[in-house]
């Protein structure tokens, strides 16, 4: 026996005991009533002669009732409930479908939005890279131009310097001739003076290098 039944059984046992007690009380009252000459003895339920009739009609009525319930009533209610359930399930399925569809549409929309956004970013990146490249190129061109100009200027400077240096050498040899004539009374030739200037310049350069 299951626990539910045992529980129900306990409760029922109590009730049944109470009921049986009352029933026995009733039999007692019936006895008293009988003593007062008011009714026939005992419970009417225990009159065996009424039993065949009750059994017969119970069997007939319950059998007919069973056929009616099983053929007409329960199929009718069952079909209505079944139809309602399938209708509800249908509607729910359709709602679920629509909801999925909406979700898909939304996802698609968001994907295309994302794509457009990425494209725009790409464009922006490309444009800025191009601009940067342009700027760098023109900067390089300008730098190159400047470099050429600077190179030319430096060449000129070097030329001027070389000229100045050679002028300086001839001035030095003239000064050396003049100095030799005045100081030593020696009459030096220009070639000698040049040679001496070169030699002392080399010595100086050597000392400087040393």
């Amino acid at each position: 026996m299951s626990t539910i039944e045992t529980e129900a059984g306990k409760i029922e046992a109590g009730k049944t005991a109470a009921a049986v007690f009352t029933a026995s009380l009733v039999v007692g009252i019936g006895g008293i009533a009988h003593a007062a000459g008011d009714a026939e003895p005992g419970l009417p339920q225990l009159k065996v002669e009424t039993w065949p009739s009750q059994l017969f009609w119970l069997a007939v009525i319950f059998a007919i009732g069973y056929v009616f319930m099983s053929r007409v009533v329960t199929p009718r209610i069952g079909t209505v409930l079944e139809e309602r359930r399938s209708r509800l399930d249908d509607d729910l399925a359709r709602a679920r479908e629509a909801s999925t569809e909406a979700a898909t549409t939304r996802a698609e929309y968001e994907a295309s939005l994302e794509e457009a956004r990425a494209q725009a970013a790409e464009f922006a990146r490309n444009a800025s890279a191009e601009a940067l490249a342009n700027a760098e190129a023109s900067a390089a061109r300008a730098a190159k131009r400047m470099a050429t100009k600077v190179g030319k200027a430096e060449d000129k400077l070097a030329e001027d310097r070389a000229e100045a240096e050679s002028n300086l050498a001839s001035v030095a040899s003239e000064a050396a001739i003049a100095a030799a004539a005045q100081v030593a009374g020696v009459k030096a030739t220009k070639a000698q003076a040049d040679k001496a200037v070169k030699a002392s310049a080399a010595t100086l350069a050597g000392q400087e290098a040393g």
Partner: protein
Amino acid sequence: MASTGMHSPIEQFKIKPIFELSAGGYDISFTNSSLFMLLAMVVGGAFLASAMSKREMVPGRLQCAAEMMYEFVADLVKSNVGSEGRAYFPFIFTLFVFLLFGNLLGMVPYSYTFTSQIIVTFAMAAFVFVGVTIVGLVKHGLHFFTLFVPAGAPKPLIPFLIVIEVISYFVRPVSLSVRLFANMLAGHTMLKVFAGLAVMISGAGGIAMTGSLLPFAAIIGLTGLEFLVAALQAYVFTILTCMYLNDALHLH
């Protein structure tokens, strides 16, 4: 009491023939008991059939009530017997409707409560008992008798437990029938006793008549209680039938 013309409280259970009938030496007269069996089935069946006549997708009040009754019993069968109980559902539903309407019609004054007849309740309980036993034997064969051996019981106790289980099994139809019979008998008798008391006290006349208010109040309370008992006992009979069927089908 005879002088006041007061009936005995058990007078209400008396079987009165409406028309005489006999077959094979037995008296099978159509009686007040038979009439109310017929009424219970006809009123119950007519209520259910007419409530469902429109078969509406969105039910009205009557159809809702009929559907609730159906689903109540269907849930009872499903939760107590399982899916194998489907085949027995029409029988259990008929049983419930018959008992419920029988008990409730019995609450109408001057009506007759056939469920207060031990022979009627015993016949139904015995039918359930025999039917359930046959169902079990057909389904499980001799294995059915393991029903009397409680699972997980200590070995030395098993012989005693088998005796107890066998007794408790064979007591089922008795307890099932006596429960319904005794509840109906006791309830209706109590109502009559208190009603008789109220009439008796009011017969005293004068200021003493107010004393009859006490039993009268008790009748009001008891009537409410009896409506509860009427529905509850129909339910109890039905659920126990389901449980016995479950035992036979699943052997614990």
